[in-house]
């Protein structure tokens, strides 16, 4: 591992989907004025990396793919304590589905030294949870997903708690490996004023285009994406509900029918 671990954290700039509203007349998404944020699971990933740095020392690189304005999330990562920021930006990356995105990130990661790669479990704009495991596959590395807790338990040995439906699994792997982090893993630290100042003054974001990464152009962007959006639509407006004034047993029947209709039971 050398003196310090090298940790790369993949982060994404996303619209804060809890702020998105529907235009009730046009039925379209209102995206104006919706703030852009670091995807919450990715921010938890940054915090996990920073915790490891606090404990053992580490060099942390944050990497993001997106349009030029995505540099904002790297500035925030600097202000949280990240050492290096890389912005992958190129028109050839545009329109990527999860597989093409993971190809681009893998191409960039092949140019970096790392012991641990951290991604968020999923991004709130797509909610697919696919990029982390796909990235791990392209790099030929073991993955441990849905991670709630990371411990370094020996030379090159990472032990995690992986959240599952009815509890958690404890898994262990040697570095290098890929971890995908749940937002419930931690409460990310705030940006510090001194780090904001040093981020502005001393830290420079590296901007990489497709020529700087180790990947075949055919697997990038829209043309490298096996999945295509055929159509998108918003769900129609709701009609007024029905009120029943009935005896309890009848109420039970009404609710049960509704739950069956929705395949809940």
């Amino acid at each position, binding site marked *: 591992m050398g003196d310090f671990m090298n940790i790369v954290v993949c982060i994404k700039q996303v619209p804060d*989907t*809890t702020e*998105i509203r529907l235009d009730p007349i046009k039925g379209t*998404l209102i995206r104006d004025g919706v703030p852009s944020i670091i995807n919450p699971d990715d921010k938890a990933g940054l915090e996990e990396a920073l915790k490891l740095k606090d404990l053992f020392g580490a060099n942390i690189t944050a990497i993001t793919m997106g349009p030029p304005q995505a540099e904002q999330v790297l500035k925030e990562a600097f202000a949280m304590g990240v050492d290096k920021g890389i912005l992958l930006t190129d028109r050839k990356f545009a329109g990527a589905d*999860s*597989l093409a995105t*993971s190809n681009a990130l893998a191409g960039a990661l092949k140019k970096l030294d790392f012991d641990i790669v951290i991604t968020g479990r999923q991004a709130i*704009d*797509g*909610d697919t*949870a*696919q990029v*982390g*495991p*796909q990235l791990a*596959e392209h790099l030929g*590395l*073991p*993955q441990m*997903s*849905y991670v709630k807790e990371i411990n370094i338990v020996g030379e090159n040995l990472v*032990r995690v708690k*992986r*959240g*599952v*439906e*009815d*509890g*958690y*699994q*404890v*898994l*262990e*792997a*040697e570095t290098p490996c890929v971890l995908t982090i749940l937002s419930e893993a931690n409460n990310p630290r705030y940006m510090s004023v001194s780090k904001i100042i040093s981020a502005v003054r001393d830290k420079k974001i590296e901007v990489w285009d497709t020529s700087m990464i180790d990947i075949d152009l055919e697997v990038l962007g829209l043309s490298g994406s*096996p*999945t*295509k*959006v*055929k*159509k*998108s*639509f918003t769900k129609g407006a709701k009609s007024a*509900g*029905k*009120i*029943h*004034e*009935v005896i*309890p047993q009848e*109420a*039970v029947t009404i*609710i*049960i029918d*509704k*739950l069956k209709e*929705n*395949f*809940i*039971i």
Partner: protein
Amino acid sequence: MNLKEYKGVYIFIEQKSKEIQNVSLELLGKGRGLADTLEEELVAVLLGNKVKDQCQDLISYGADRVIYVDSPMLDKYLTEPYAQALSAISKSEKPNVILIGATSTGRDLAPRVSARLATGLTADCTSLEISEEKELLMTRPAFGGNLMATIICPDHRPQMSSVRPGVMQKLAIDTNRTGEIVEFDMKFDESKFKVRFIEELKETKQLVKIEDAHVLVSGGRGVGSAENFKHLEVLAKNIGATVSASRAMVDLGVMGHDRQVGQTGKTVRPDIYFALGISGAIQHLAGMEESEYIIAINKDKGANIFNTADLGIVGDVNKILPLLNSQINKLTNKNA
């Protein structure tokens, strides 16, 4: 890639301690319809250790054929052995479609396999249909449920999709159905097994955050007490839902602040929101009015919640819930 070589709808069957998970039976139900429309075969893929005895059940739930791999390597779910087996079966069988439950297992396995097969994967589909061109139309929510998108995978096979538990419907069990059961001869590359399983621990604490829950059972002042709130917890457990509360119950100390819905709590948009004994103060509505379907029970006919509810019941939640719970218990035991 010659797309015509790829035939059949394949369902990854998830088992835990040899017990087939419900989501896999639901996918067999959905897959049966897709396979019939395509006029292709429905195949269940079962991976595990000593799971051969479960194969017949998969036929009873709709499969034409079951392919299984029995190996100690597959005793507990770990990404690499499962990814190797599913990829090997896919490379050998050339499926048209692979469906996987969007559980913590499926959402770990499916992307790994899709990358290995260099094909597309669409997560958490809420609707699957076959187009006139015989393509799989995979519809899913995006942008926090604000937008629905129909995704296709036109030039790559298999077309892979994951579906959350509870979205599709399983078929009634038919023990007279017959089908073929075949063992797949799997050669593992153990040198790639880099993750070790240490232990697993059950946790009764809820893992699902209320913002992520698909069904929320939420209680307010009308529930009255921690004692009565237990009915809500039973209902949630019975239907795979998560409990939440209005501010009144949080202030009473019945629920933690992380369970509070509303302006000073969390904003939620579940598929179904039970507003139980909740009057519907504007601060509460701000946190839940965009739920897909709202079921409200309240004693007060004039309660504001009934203006937002899709289904309103005027009545005492503490009388209705025990009845509802025992009725659901009866139904689910009969189906099992």
